[in-house]
Structures are given as structure tokens and as C-alpha cells.
């Protein structure tokens, strides 16, 4: 049996510090590390032998150290900070997400000795979050909407085939992303992926871009130039906004699709192409065919596999996922640590109908990144046009609810007073019977199956 008594308080503290899974270190007033617990060694990969005596920023190496050190703030204002999110970099260049809490270190007489920093490794939680997200992730696209999940389910087979694909969808729905996903899943993934916006170029330029030209084909053609079809080799070419091309260009494209050959401008020799073609449009190609603005034969040539990307307003359930994704992306790109979006701001996004689709949402989040220095994105960081509905929504909602509740009470009371006789209840309320039925339906009141008249008779 141990004859010694319970450990002294100082010993106790040491035992506790060594047994917890949070990293803890202390610094003196000159920012040199004075203690470094076991978990701190494990998380940072630095032994306490190496850490003690060194400046905390040389050991801790967090993104906060230089600009916004929580421990420095604590030492300056004498206040503790709890759970600030940041990341540290280990010696093998791995970034570890952590949360940090800081407080002052004082002796028994209240004199400040330095600071203490407690940090928690969030890698596992981040990994679980990523796993959860990846179940809705396909290539670079993310969605939990049934229509998109159905699309994801087909993509692998579509990618394996060589057929021409037509992608239809409003602007900003991710047509290029989908094309890239098809290319990346296909056996052509090691070959080039080339996207060109057909609507942005006049015919002659578009043709010289796609098919190339020979020296002397036109005034400024001083040497041969390879076109995108040649550059793509056995890769994939995305012809975006194909609905905006001229009939003359459509004829040339039809020939490429039919013969798998093209002729550079100024050349008489056809060149074989093995590139796969994906066409995309934000217009109703079928409608354009009906009004003779798009060649019917070309339409049938490209409409072999047609995929329709739903607009964002039809997949609003994806907004939280997309917002998280854009925040993570912009945090990396802008070196910020925005923690997320608060409920009110998310509500505002969910009320918007996004005519610009996902691109518009991404731009809104980028706007918020400019205005939001840290923490979550709140309504005041969002563009002004999104904040307009706040007044409209906040004040009428309670009044509407109050009116609805009063109407429901009055109807139920009238029905009760008249033994569920609908006609009598309507008369008592001063309403026509059909108005009563309309209100009953609107308010979701369930009426007893038997009308009061039948029970009384």
C-alpha cells in the first residue's frame, strides 16, 4: 500500500495536465514557453525538451501568431478568450485545425506570470464533417437534391461512353463544372479539357480558334496556327453557349460531328479529330429548332445524351452545403478564418430566388468575405438587396400568425357551439358557407366527418 498521502496540489495539476487530451502550454512575460504538456507534444509533434525556452510562435506556428494572437490579446486586456478557431502547421507541412482558449497565468498573490494557452486538435471532427459532406459530393459538385443525385448516378456511365453530351441549364448552374466532371471520370482524363464560349466570339474568330488556320488564310495570318480541336487531341472540348452560334458555324460543326474531321481556315486538307464534344447552352435548343434559329440536324447530332442542370431555386436544400463549400474555399484562398454563416444570414439566402444561380451565391459569399473580418457571416455582411426582405418578413409574420390563430379559435368555437353544423357555424360567424370551408382548409382545421345536421336528424 502507498503510505504517502494524497499528492500536493502542484503535483495534482501536473498529473491532470499530463492526462488530458487538450494541448496546454504556458509562456512567461517574454513569450518564451515555460511548460508544454504531453498532448501539446503529440499535436505539434515537438518535444517539450525542444519547446521549452523557445518563443511560442516558433513552436505553435498558428495562423493567428502574426496578426491576431489570442494570447497577446489576453495579456493586453487581461481577459480570457475561449474557442477561437485557427490552424497550426507541423514540421511536415501538415495543417492541423485547432480551437484555442487563452487566459492569464497568475501566482497566488495575483501577480501576472504570463499566459496559458489550451488548444484542441479538431482534425477528427473536420474529417467527419468532410466525410459527411463527401456523401453529397461528386467530383467538384456538391448536392443533396434528388435531381442532382440522380444526375450524379448516371455520370460515370456517361463519362465512359464517347457520345456527344448536351448540357442544358440556366447561366451559373455549373455547366462547365459538370463537363469537367464528365471529362475527369472518362478514359480521356489524362488528355486536355478545353472549354470555349461560342457566344462570346464572332464566327470567323470562333472558327479560327476551333479549327486553326494556315499562313496566308487571311491578312494577319503570318504563320500556321493550331486550333483547339488539334490542341484537344484525344481530350474533351466544351462548346459553351452553343445556342448562340450562327447557322454558318452550325454547318461547319455538323461536318466535324459527322465526319470527325475539320479543315483549318485556308487549308484544303481535312484533319481527323478524336476529341469528345460536350455542348452546353442556357437556351431552349428545342425551341430554337422550332423557330429555325438552330439547325435541326445539328440538334439531333448533339442531343444524344441530354443532361439538365436544375436552377438553384429548385434545389434550395443545397444552399447550406454550397455556402459551407464556398466559405472553405474562400478561407483557403483569402487566408481567412470565417467560421460559417449565422442562421439569420442563411435565412436571407434561403428567401432569395437566385436568378444568377450558384455563381450568384458564390459572389454573395465573396462579398461577405470582404466585409466580414472574422467569426460567422451575419446579415450585415450580405449585399444590401438581400437584406431588404428583413423588414418585410420580421414584422408581418407575427401579425399574420395572430390573425390566423384568432380565426382558427373563432371557427372552432362556432363549430363547437353549433354541434359541428357547418352552415350554422358560418352564419354565426357572419360568413358564407363556402368562405368558411376555404378558411377551414387554409388554416388546416380538421373537421369531424359527420356534419352537425346529420347527427341531430
Amino acid at each position, binding site marked *: 500500500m502507498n503510505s504517502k498521502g494524497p499528492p500536493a496540489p502542484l503535483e495534482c495539476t501536473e498529473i491532470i495536465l499530463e492526462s488530458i487530451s487538450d494541448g496546454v502550454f504556458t509562456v512567461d512575460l517574454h513569450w518564451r514557453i515555460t511548460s508544454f504538456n504531453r498532448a501539446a507534444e503529440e499535436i*505539434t509533434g515537438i518535444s517539450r525538451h525542444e519547446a521549452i525556452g523557445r*518563443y511560442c510562435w*516558433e513552436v505553435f*506556428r498558428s495562423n493567428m*501568431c*502574426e496578426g491576431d494572437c489570442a494570447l497577446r490579446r489576453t495579456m493586453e486586456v487581461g481577459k480570457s478568450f475561449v474557442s477561437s478557431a485557427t490552424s497550426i502547421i507541423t514540421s511536415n507541412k*501538415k495543417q492541423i485545425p485547432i480551437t484555442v482558449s487563452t487566459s492569464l497565468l497568475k501566482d497566488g498573490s495575483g501577480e501576472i506570470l504570463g499566459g496559458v494557452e489550451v488548444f484542441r486538435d479538431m482534425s477528427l471532427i473536420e474529417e467527419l464533417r468532410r466525410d459527411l459532406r463527401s456523401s453529397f459530393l461528386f467530383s467538384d459538385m456538391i448536392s443533396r437534391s434528388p435531381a442532382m443525385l440522380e444526375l450524379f448516378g448516371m455520370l460515370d456511365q456517361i463519362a465512359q461512353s464517347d457520345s456527344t453530351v448536351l448540357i442544358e441549364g440556366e447561366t451559373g448552374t455549373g455547366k462547365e463544372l459538370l463537363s469537367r466532371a464528365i471529362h475527369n471520370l472518362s478514359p480521356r482524363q489524362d488528355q486536355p479539357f478545353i472549354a470555349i464560349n461560342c457566344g462570346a466570339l464572332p464566327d470567323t474568330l470562333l472558327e479560327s480558334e476551333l479549327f486553326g488556320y494556315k499562313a496566308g488564310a487571311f491578312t494577319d495570318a503570318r504563320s500556321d496556327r493550331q486550333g483547339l480541336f488539334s490542341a484537344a487531341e484525344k481530350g474533351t472540348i466544351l462548346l459553351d453557349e452553343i445556342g448562340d452560334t450562327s447557322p454558318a458555324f452550325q454547318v461547319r460543326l455538323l461536318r466535324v460531328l459527322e465526319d470527325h474531321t475539320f479543315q483549318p481556315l485556308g487549308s484544303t486538307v481535312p484533319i481527323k479529330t478524336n476529341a469528345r464534344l460536350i455542348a452546353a447552352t442556357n437556351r431552349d435548343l428545342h425551341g430554337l429548332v422550332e423557330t429555325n434559329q438552330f439547325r435541326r440536324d445539328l440538334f439531333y447530332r448533339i442531343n444524344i445524351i441530354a443532361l439538365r442542370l436544375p436552377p438553384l431555386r429548385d434545389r434550395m436544400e443545397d444552399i447550406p452545403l454550397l455556402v459551407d463549400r464556398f466559405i472553405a474555399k474562400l478561407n483557403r*484562398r483569402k487566408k481567412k478564418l470565417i467560421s460559417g454563416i449565422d442562421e439569420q444570414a442563411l435565412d436571407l439566402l434561403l428567401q432569395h430566388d437566385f436568378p444568377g444561380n450558384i455563381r450568384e451565391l458564390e459572389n454573395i459569399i465573396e462579398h461577405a468575405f470582404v466585409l466580414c473580418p472574422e467569426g460567422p457571416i451575419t446579415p450585415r455582411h450580405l449585399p444590401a438587396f438581400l437584406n431588404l426582405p428583413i423588414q418585410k418578413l420580421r414584422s408581418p409574420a407575427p401579425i399574420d400568425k395572430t390573425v390566423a390563430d384568432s380565426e382558427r379559435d373563432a371557427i372552432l368555437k362556432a363549430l363547437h357551439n353549433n354541434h359541428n353544423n357547418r352552415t350554422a357555424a358560418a352564419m354565426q360567424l357572419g360568413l358564407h358557407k363556402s368562405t368558411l370551408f376555404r378558411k377551414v382548409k387554409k388554416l388546416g382545421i380538421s373537421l369531424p366527418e359527420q356534419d352537425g345536421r346529420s347527427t341531430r336528424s
Partner: protein
Amino acid sequence: MKVAMTVWGNRVSPVFDSAQTILLAEIKDSTVTWEQREFIAGQIPTRLARMLVDRGIDTLICGAISEQPASIIEAAGIKLVSFVSGNAAHLLEACARGISTDHFKMPGCKIPCCRQQWQQQTLDPQRRPDENGG
């Protein structure tokens, strides 16, 4: 030789990924002949790498750096000397004179922090990097 170093006041910036200032310097005949500081906060690594290449920088010296920016810098053809700390002027001088930078290694750095072998001599053991670093 032109060298860039992410700095924080008179020290090497502890983390390249969140560094706000870069020091550009030219070394001729073992002497630093030109120096200039630039604000780089918020600049994405690809743009920064392009800027360094445009300025003819051969070597980037920095503190801790994560995988992604490190690979971007190296892919741009810039030699990376990472996970160093201490007084920026002393480190630059050590680079200029071609002497060992081992004393500037960050703790926990198992591999030699300099990819480029500058050293044949050793830095004066009396002059520790922390001497003027605080």
C-alpha cells in the same frame, strides 16, 4: 542572387501562410546590396509566386509553410528554405556569407531546413538567432 523572406518586424514571419510582409533582397559578393519590403497580406500563393518569379527571386526563406503553398512556390522554380526562425537580418547575412543556417531551424524540424546547401562554415556559436529575436 535574389532572395525573398517573409518577415514580421525584425523576425522571420512564423507562418508563411499568414505572413503580411515580404523582404526582397539582392546578394552580391557575399553582401546584401539591396533590400525592399512589400505588403503581401491576403495575396494568394499563386499570385505571390508569380510576383517572385517576375522579380527574379531565386530563393524564398520563410517560417512554417503548409503543403499547398510550398508546392506552388517550388513548382514556380523557386528554391524554398522553410521552417526557419529568428532575426531576419542575421539570417539574411548568414545566407549572404554562405554560412550555416542550422541555428535558425524551428524546433521539431527533423530534416535540414535548407534545401540549398549554403553552409560550409558554421555560424558563430555565440550568436544565437534568438539573441535579437525577441
